[in-house]
C-alpha cells in the first residue's frame, strides 16, 4: 500500500488528531413519484405509521440532546416535533390522499412544499429559517415512507470519522461523542456553525476541503489532523505511526494543561494577572469555566438580538444576564452593551445604507440615538446585577460626552428601579471599550471618569492602520505588533494605572503568544480571549517575569516596524529559532 495515500487540505476547524474509518454522510436519494392508489384508507394508515416512527425518533433525540447539550439545542427538535403534530399539515395530507387517491409520499411532499414556500416568501429571516425546519422534518417522514435509510448521527454504534458535504445544526447537535472521533466537510469555514460546534464538543474537525466527499468511499481509513487542517486518505503505515504519536503527544499536552484549570495565573516573579474568557451566549459559560477562566472579560450581547424577528424583551435579557452572572459566581463578568451596525445587522431594525458602515451608525452611537433600546438593556443589566459581579462596558466610545451621557442614562434607570423597590448591586463598575484611537489618546481624561478600560484590539488596529482586515488586498496592514498600536496601548495602560483603574484587553491579541510578553511588560491587568486559548496562555505567563518583560518595552517601542518587533520577541524573549 506504500505511496497510495492521498492528502487533502482544508480549514482547521477544531484541534486534535483522529484516526478511523470514514462514515460517508450523504443525503439519501429521494425521488418522489405521484402514483394513484386504490385503497386510500390503507395509504392513510401507511402515512400515519411513518409519521409515528419519525415522531418517536425525534422524541428520543430531544431527550438525548437535552441531556448532553442543553435545552437550547433540544428546542430545535421540539420545534420539529410540533411540525409533525400540526393538524394543518397532517389533516391536509390525509385529505389529499383520500380525495385525490394519491400516494402518501406525493401528498406529503406537495403539502410540505406549500408551507415551505409560504415561509420562504416571508419578509423576515426568522420565518425563512422555519422553512428549513419543515424541509428537514418532512425528509425524515419521507425516508420512512420510501424505505430509504435516513442517517441519524445519534444511531452510530462504532467509532467513525464523519465525512459530509456540510453538517446542519441538527446533524451536529446529534453527534454522539462516544463514536464520532472527528469530522471532515466539503464546505464551511472556521466560523461556520459546524466548526464552532466541533470546538465546543472538542471533536477534531477539518472543514472546507471542497473535495472530501468525492475522494472518500465508505470505510476508507482516514487520518484527520485538526491542528494543520490536513486529511490523509488510505495512510501508509509510517503515516499511521507518525499520527498515532502526534495524537498521544496532543493528549499528553492537553492533560498537562488541564492541571492548570484551577490554578490562578501568576507570573514567574509572582504577579497575578487575570485570564478571562470572551463569550457570546450563556451556553459558552460552561466551556469558559472548564478552561479555567477567572472571569468573563467580554460578553457580547448581540446573540440576544440575532436570529429572531423582534427585539428581545427586558425579561428575556434579564434572564440571560442573570444566568451568566449566577454561573460565574463571584468571578467578574464584563457585559458589553449592544454593538450592532458595522457588519452586524438585524432584520427587524431598519438601518440606512452607509458608504462606510465601520465609520458609521453603530454601537453606542446607535444606542444613544435609539434610547428605548438602550434603556431596556440597561434595566435588564441592572436587575441582573443583584445576582453576581457585574461590570458594564460601553463599546465604540470616541468622546467624553458619549461616555458621560451613557453613564447618566444608566444612573437614571438605576434610580428608577431602586425607587420601585428593585434590588440593584451597589458595586457595578462602569467602563469603556478602547477601540477608537481618539479614546486611546485621551485615555488620561477618560481614566478620571471610568472604572476600567478594556482594549478592543480588533477594531483599534483597523482604525489605527485605516485598513480593513477582511479586505485581502490591505489585510497585510492589520499589524498587531506595529509600534503605533503598541504606543497607544502603553498610553492607555499608563493612563488607567495613574488613576488606579484596571486595564484589560478583549481582542484576539490578548491570547497571542507573541503579544503576551509585550502586554505583560506594558502592565496589562486582564487578558480576555477565547476559552481554548486560556490554558496555553496561563502556562506561558507562568514562565515569564513581568519585571523582565518591562525592561524590553522601551527598546520595542523605539522600533520602526511590526516585523522588527515580531522578530525581536521571537528571538530575544521566546528564544525561537527563526
Amino acid at each position, binding site marked *: 500500500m506504500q505511496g497510495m495515500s492521498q492528502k487533502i487540505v482544508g480549514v482547521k476547524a477544531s484541534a486534535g488528531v483522529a484516526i478511523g474509518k470514514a462514515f460517508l454522510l450523504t443525503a439519501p436519494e429521494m425521488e418522489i413519484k405521484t402514483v394513484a392508489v386504490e385503497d386510500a384508507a390503507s395509504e392513510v394508515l401507511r402515512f400515519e405509521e411513518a409519521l409515528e416512527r419519525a415522531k418517536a425518533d425525534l422524541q428520543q433525540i430531544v431527550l438525548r440532546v437535552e441531556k448532553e447539550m442543553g435545552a437550547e439545542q433540544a428546542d430545535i427538535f421540539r420545534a420539529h416535533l410540533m*411540525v409533525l403534530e400540526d393538524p*394543518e*399539515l397532517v389533516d391536509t395530507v390525509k385529505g389529499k390522499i383520500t380525495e385525490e387517491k394519491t400516494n402518501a409520499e406525493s401528498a406529503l411532499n406537495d403539502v410540505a412544499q406549500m*408551507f415551505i414556500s409560504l415561509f420562504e416568501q416571508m419578509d423576515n429571516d426568522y420565518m425563512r429559517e422555519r422553512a428549513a425546519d*419543515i424541509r428537514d422534518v418532512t425528509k425524515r417522514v419521507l425516508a420512512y415512507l420510501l424505505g430509504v435509510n435516513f442517517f441519524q448521527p445519534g444511531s452510530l454504534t462504532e467509532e467513525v470519522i464523519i465525512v459530509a458535504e456540510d453538517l446542519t445544526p441538527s446533524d451536529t447537535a446529534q453527534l454522539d461523542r462516544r463514536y464520532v472521533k472527528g469530522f471532515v466537510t466539503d464546505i464551511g469555514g472556521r466560523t461556520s456553525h459546524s466548526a464552532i460546534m466541533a470546538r465546543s464538543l472538542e471533536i477534531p474537525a477539518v472543514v472546507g476541503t471542497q473535495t472530501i466527499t468525492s475522494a472518500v468511499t465508505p470505510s476508507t481509513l482516514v487520518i484527520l489532523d485538526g491542528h494543520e487542517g490536513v486529511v490523509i486518505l488510505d495512510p501508509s503505515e509510517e503515516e499511521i505511526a507518525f499520527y498515532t504519536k502526534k495524537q498521544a503527544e496532543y493528549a499528553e499536552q492537553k492533560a498537562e494543561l488541564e492541571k492548570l484549570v484551577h490554578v490562578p495565573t501568576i507570573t514567574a516573579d509572582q504577579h497575578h494577572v487575570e485570564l478571562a474568557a470572551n463569550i457570546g451566549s450563556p451556553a459558552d459559560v460552561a466551556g469558559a469555566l472548564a478552561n479555567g477562566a477567572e472571569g468573563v472579560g467580554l460578553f457580547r450581547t448581540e446573540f440576544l438580538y440575532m436570529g429572531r*424577528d423582534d427585539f428581545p424583551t427586558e425579561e428575556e435579557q434579564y434572564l440571560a444576564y442573570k444566568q451568566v452572572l449566577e454561573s460565574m459566581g463571584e468571578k467578574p463578568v464584563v457585559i458589553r452593551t449592544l454593538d450592532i451596525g458595522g457588519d452586524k445587522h438585524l432584520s427587524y431594525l431598519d438601518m440606512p445604507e452607509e458608504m462606510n458602515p465601520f465609520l458609521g451608525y453603530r454601537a453606542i452611537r446607535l444606542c444613544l440615538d435609539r434610547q428605548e433600546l438602550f434603556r431596556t438593556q440597561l434595566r435588564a443589566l441592572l436587575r441582573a446585577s443583584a445576582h453576581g459581579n457585574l461590570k458594564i462596558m460601553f463599546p465604540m466610545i470616541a468622546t467624553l460626552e458619549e461616555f458621560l451621557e451613557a453613564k447618566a442614562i444608566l444612573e437614571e434607570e438605576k434610580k428608577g428601579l431602586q425607587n420601585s423597590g428593585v434590588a440593584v448591586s451597589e458595586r457595578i463598575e462602569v467602563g469603556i471599550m478602547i477601540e477608537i484611537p481618539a479614546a486611546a489618546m485621551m485615555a488620561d481624561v477618560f481614566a478620571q471618569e471610568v472604572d476600567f478600560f478594556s482594549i478592543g484590539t480588533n477594531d483599534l488596529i483597523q482604525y489605527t492602520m485605516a485598513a480593513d482586515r477582511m479586505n485581502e488586498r490591505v489585510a497585510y496592514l492589520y499589524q498587531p505588533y506595529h509600534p503605533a498600536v503598541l504606543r497607544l496601548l502603553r498610553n492607555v495602560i499608563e493612563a488607567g494605572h495613574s488613576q488606579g483603574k484596571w486595564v484589560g484587553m478583549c481582542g484576539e491579541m490578548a491570547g497571542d503568544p507573541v503579544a503576551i510578553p509585550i502586554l505583560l511588560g506594558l502592565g496589562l491587568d486582564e487578558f480576555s480571549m477565547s476559552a481554548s486559548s486560556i490554558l496555553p496562555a496561563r502556562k506561558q505567563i507562568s514562565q515569564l517575569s513581568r519585571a523582565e518583560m518591562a525592561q524590553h518595552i522601551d527598546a520595542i517601542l523605539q522600533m520602526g516596524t511590526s516585523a522588527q518587533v515580531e522578530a525581536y520577541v521571537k528571538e530575544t524573549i521566546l528564544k525561537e529559532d527563526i
Partner: protein
Amino acid sequence: MVEKKIVVQLPHGLHARPAANFVKVATSFASEIKLVKKDKTVNGKSIMGIMASAIAKGEEITLIADGVDENEAVAALEKVLLSQEG
C-alpha cells in the same frame, strides 16, 4: 361554542416561542380552537398556521373554542395572549 375578542398583549405578538406555547396550551384541550384575524381563520392547534398569520401585539383577534372544555380553553388561552412576557 365560546367566542371572545382579545387584543394581543404579547410583546412580540404570536411569533416563535409564544406561538409554540399557545399551541401547547391549545392542544391540551379537547375542544376545537380557532383564531380569527380580520376575515382569516386559522386552526389554533397548528403551529405553522399561527406563525404564518403573523399576529402582532395590539392586534384584535377573535378566539373561538368549541367542545366539552370550551370555557376552560378560552380562559387559559386568553391568559397566554394577554401575557406581557415572551
